[in-house]
C-alpha cells in the first residue's frame, strides 16, 4: 500500500524517518533482562530484541477496520529506553497504532493489518508468533483506569499469578517493587488487602501502571494515561514516566502538548491515519518540519 503519489499535496514531501537517537541504551541493562526472558517464547527471544538500539520498528503498516482504513502506510521507529509520544487530532489513529504494538487489535473482529512491526529482528505479526509472550513484554496502561475488582495486592500480582507464580515471597517482593516503581507504595502499603476500587482515580491509574510493571515488560504502552487525572496526579505520573524510562521503553499517546514536550524524547505527529512527522521532541516543537505540525502544536489547526 505504499503509494506516495496518493498522499495529500501538503505532505508530499514526507521526510525520511530519522534514526532515533540512543538515549539510555546500555547493553548492560539489556543483558540483565536476558535472564528474565529466558523462557522459550520463541521467536521473541531473538537476542536482537534484547540488545538492538531500536526497540520497535513499524514498517509500511496499513490497518483497516472493515472497509475503513485507519492507518495508512506508517513507518516509525522507537528507540530503546526512550519515551516516544504520539500526538494528533482525535480519530487520527494514535490508539490504533499503539494497540498494534502489542496486537490488542487482534481482539477486534473485522480488522485487517498489512505491513510489519519488528521487535529486534522479529516480526510480531509473523504467523506462529506467541501473542501471549508478546503481550508480557509490551505492557499497556489504558486511558481509563481499569483495576480488577480484586484487592490491591492481587491486582499487582495478577500478571505473575497467571504465569504460574504462586510463591508468596516472590509475589510480595514483586508487588512491593512494582508499587514503589509506580510511586504508590507509601500510600497503600497498609491496605494491600483492600479492594482496588476504593482508591482514587489517580491512585487507580498508578496501580494500573504498577500492575503493568510487575511482569517486567520491555515496553510500556500508555494510551492517554493522564486524561482523567488532575494536574497533581498528572505531574506524579509524568515524574514516574521519566523515572521508568531508565528501565523501560515507553510509548505514550497524549493530547497534551506540554506533556509531550515535558516527558518525551521523540514525538510522532499523526493526521488522518498518516504519520506526518516524527523526530526529536525538541526539534519537532521548536522547529517543526511541516506546516501541519506547526499548526497543530500552536493550536491553529482545523
Amino acid at each position, binding site marked *: 500500500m505504499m503509494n506516495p503519489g496518493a498522499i495529500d499535496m501538503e505532505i508530499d514531501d514526507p521526510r525520511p524517518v530519522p534514526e532515533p537517537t540512543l538515549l539510555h541504551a546500555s547493553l548492560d541493562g539489556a543483558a540483565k533482562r536476558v535472564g528474565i526472558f529466558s523462557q522459550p517464547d520463541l521467536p521473541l527471544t531473538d537476542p536482537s530484541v534484547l540488545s538492538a538500539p531500536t526497540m520497535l520498528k513499524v514498517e509500511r503498516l496499513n490497518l483497516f477496520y472493515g472497509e475503513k482504513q485507519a492507518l495508512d502506510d506508517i513507518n516509525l521507529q522507537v528507540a530503546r529506553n526512550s519515551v516516544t509520544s504520539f500526538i494528533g487530532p482525535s480519530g487520527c489513529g494514535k490508539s490504533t497504532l499503539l494497540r498494534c504494538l502489542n496486537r490488542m487489535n487482534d481482539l477486534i473482529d473485522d480488522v485487517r493489518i498489512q505491513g510489519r512491526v519488528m521487535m529486534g529482528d522479529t516480526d510480531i505479526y509473523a504467523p506462529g508468533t506467541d501473542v501471549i509472550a508478546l*503481550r508480557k513484554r509490551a505492557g*499497556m496502561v*489504558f486511558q481509563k483506569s*481499569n483495576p480488577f475488582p480484586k484487592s490491591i495486592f492481587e491486582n499487582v500480582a*495478577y500478571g505473575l499469578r*497467571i504465569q504460574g507464580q504462586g510463591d508468596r515471597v516472590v509475589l510480595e517482593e514483586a508487588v512491593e517493587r512494582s508499587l514503589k516503581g509506580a510511586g504508590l507504595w507509601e500510600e497503600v502499603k497498609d491496605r494491600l488487602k483492600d*479492594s482496588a*476500587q476504593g482508591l482514587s482515580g489517580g491512585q487507580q491509574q498508578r496501580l494500573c501502571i504498577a*500492575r503493568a510493571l510487575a*511482569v517486567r515488560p520491555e515496553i510500556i504502552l500508555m494510551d492517554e494515561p493522564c486524561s482523567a487525572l488532575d494536574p497533581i496526579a498528572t505531574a506524579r505520573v509524568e515524574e514516574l514516566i521519566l523515572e521508568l524510562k531508565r528501565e523501560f521503553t515507553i510509548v505514550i499517546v497524549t493530547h497534551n502538548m506540554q506533556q509531550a514536550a515535558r516527558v518525551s524524547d521523540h514525538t510522532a505527529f499523526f493526521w488522518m491515519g498518516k504519520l506526518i512527522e516524527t523526530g526529536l521532541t525538541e526539534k519537532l516543537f521548536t522547529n517543526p518540519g511541516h506546516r501541519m505540525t506547526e499548526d497543530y502544536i500552536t493550536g491553529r489547526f482545523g
Partner: protein
Amino acid sequence: MSRLAERFRQGGVFVWLSATVLAFCLAMIIGLVGYIAAKGMGYFWPSPLVQVQTPDGPILGEITGQQPTHGEEPAKTQFRVGNRDIYGQDFRWVPTADLSAPEFPKDALLIERLEYGPFIGRIVSLSHDGQPVATGPAAITEAASRLPETLRIRRHIQSIEKGQVGDLNRRIERIRLARRKLEEGRDASALQALDAKAAALQTTYDELQTSLEQSRSESKAWILGLQTVDGQTRDLPLGSVVRMVPANAMNRFDKLGVYLSRLWEFLADDPRESNTEGGIFPAIFGTVMMVLVMSVLVVPLGVITALYLREYARQGWVVRAVRVAVNNLAGVPSIVFGVFGLGFFVYSLGGTIDQLFFSDSLPTPTYGTGGILWASLTLSLLTVPVVVVATEEALGAVPRSQREASLAMGATKWQTLWNIVLPSATPGILTGLILAIARGAGEVAPLMLTGVVKLAPSMPLDGTFPFFHLDRKFMHLGFHIYDVGFQSPNSEAAKPMVFMASFLLLLVVVILNLFALNLRRKLRERLGGSTF
C-alpha cells in the same frame, strides 16, 4: 383541561398509576401468603369440645363449619366428632335449628392416637394387665402421668426398627447377593463362611426381634377404657396414644404447649395414617435436598453453556438459533420434561447403569427406577434456560476494559474468563440460580414421573454408607399437598394439612432463596461496587 394536560406531561399520573398497581400486587401476595398461613397455622390450636343434644342423640366434637340457609336447605353446623373407628367418618353436618344450647364439659377429651384419627369422648378407667388401676377423673391424671413413659418406649421401638433392624436387613441382603455370585463359582468353603455369617446375623436379628416384642407388649399392658358421648365404649392401649387434649379444661398456656408440641411433631416427625396425620419432615427434607442437588447440577450446566455461547462460539445465525431454542425450553410444559426424564434418564440411562454396575440385584432396579438424582436432573434441564440467560447477561455486563487489561497482561482468553470475567459475573449467575430455585422448588408434575413417592421408606441422606443415596425415591412438599389434598380417603380432615404444607413449601423456597441472596450480597461486597 390544560391543568390535566399539564399533570399528564409531568408524569404525576403515571407515578400514581404505577404505585397503585404495585400496591395491588403487594396486597395480592400478602393476601395469598396470609390466607395460607392463617388457615394452616390455626389448625394446631386446640379448639373447645362442644357437647350438644340433637334428636338423634348427643354430639361431642369441635365445630368446624357453618352453612347459612339456602332456599329449602336449612342452616347447618359441621362438627368434627372423630372416632372414625366407631362412626365411620370424622365429620357430621347437623341442622343448626335442631341443636340444644352448647355445653363445654370439662372432662371431655380429644385423644390423638396412632390409628383411626382422634378419639373424642371421655376416659372412664385405666387398667394394667387387666387389673383396673384407676377410674373416673383419677384415670385421666394417672394416664397423663404414664403417657411420657409410653411415648419414650415407642420412640425407642421406632428407632430400633428404623436403625438396627434396617441395618441388619441390609447386611443380610448383601450376603444374599454375595451368595448368589458365589453359587456360580461353586467355591464351597467361601459359601460356608458366608452361611455362617448369615446365621450369626440371623440370630442377632431374632434377638432384636424378641426384645422389640417385649417392649411392644410392655407398651400394650396399659389399657385406657374410653367412652363416647353416646355411650359406646372402646379399649385403647396407652401405647398408641400420641397426645391427650382435654381442651375445655385447659388454660391458654396449656393450649400453647399443645400447639407447640403439635407444630414440632408436624415439622419433625414422619407422617402417619397415609400422610393425613403426623409430620411431614421427610417431605421437607426431600424438597430441600432435591433443590440442592438440582442447584449443584444446573449451575455448571448453565454456566458452561452460556460461556460457550457468549465467549467462544462465533456469533452467527447458528448461535442465535441455539439461543432461541434454549430460551424456548423454558416454555415447554413441565410434564413433558417429566416424560423425557422418565424415558431418557430413568429407563435408558438408569437401565444401562443397572446393567453395568448393579446387575447383581436385578431384576430389582437400582437406578433404573425413579430417584432423587433423576428428578433433580430433570428439573435442572427444566431450569437451565434461566441460568443460561442470566449468565449470558452477567458475562456481557463485565466491562470490556477489564478483559482488555487482563489480556494486555499476557493472560490467555481462558485465564481472563476464569480470573476476571467469571468472578465478576458470579452475582449475576446467582441471580439465575435464585430464579431457577424459585421455579424448580415448586414443580410437581415432572417429579411424579421421575422419583417422588407418597411415602418413602428411607431418606436420600442418612447414616449408612455412602450417605448420599441418589438412587432413592423421596417425598416432596408439592406432591404431598396434591396427595393429601386430593388423593387421600379422608381429605376433609387433611384440609388444614394442605394449607400447612403449602405454607411450608413457600417457606422452604423463601429460605433457600434467602441463602442464595445472602451469598450474592457477600460476593458483591467482596467485589466492591464503587469505582471511586
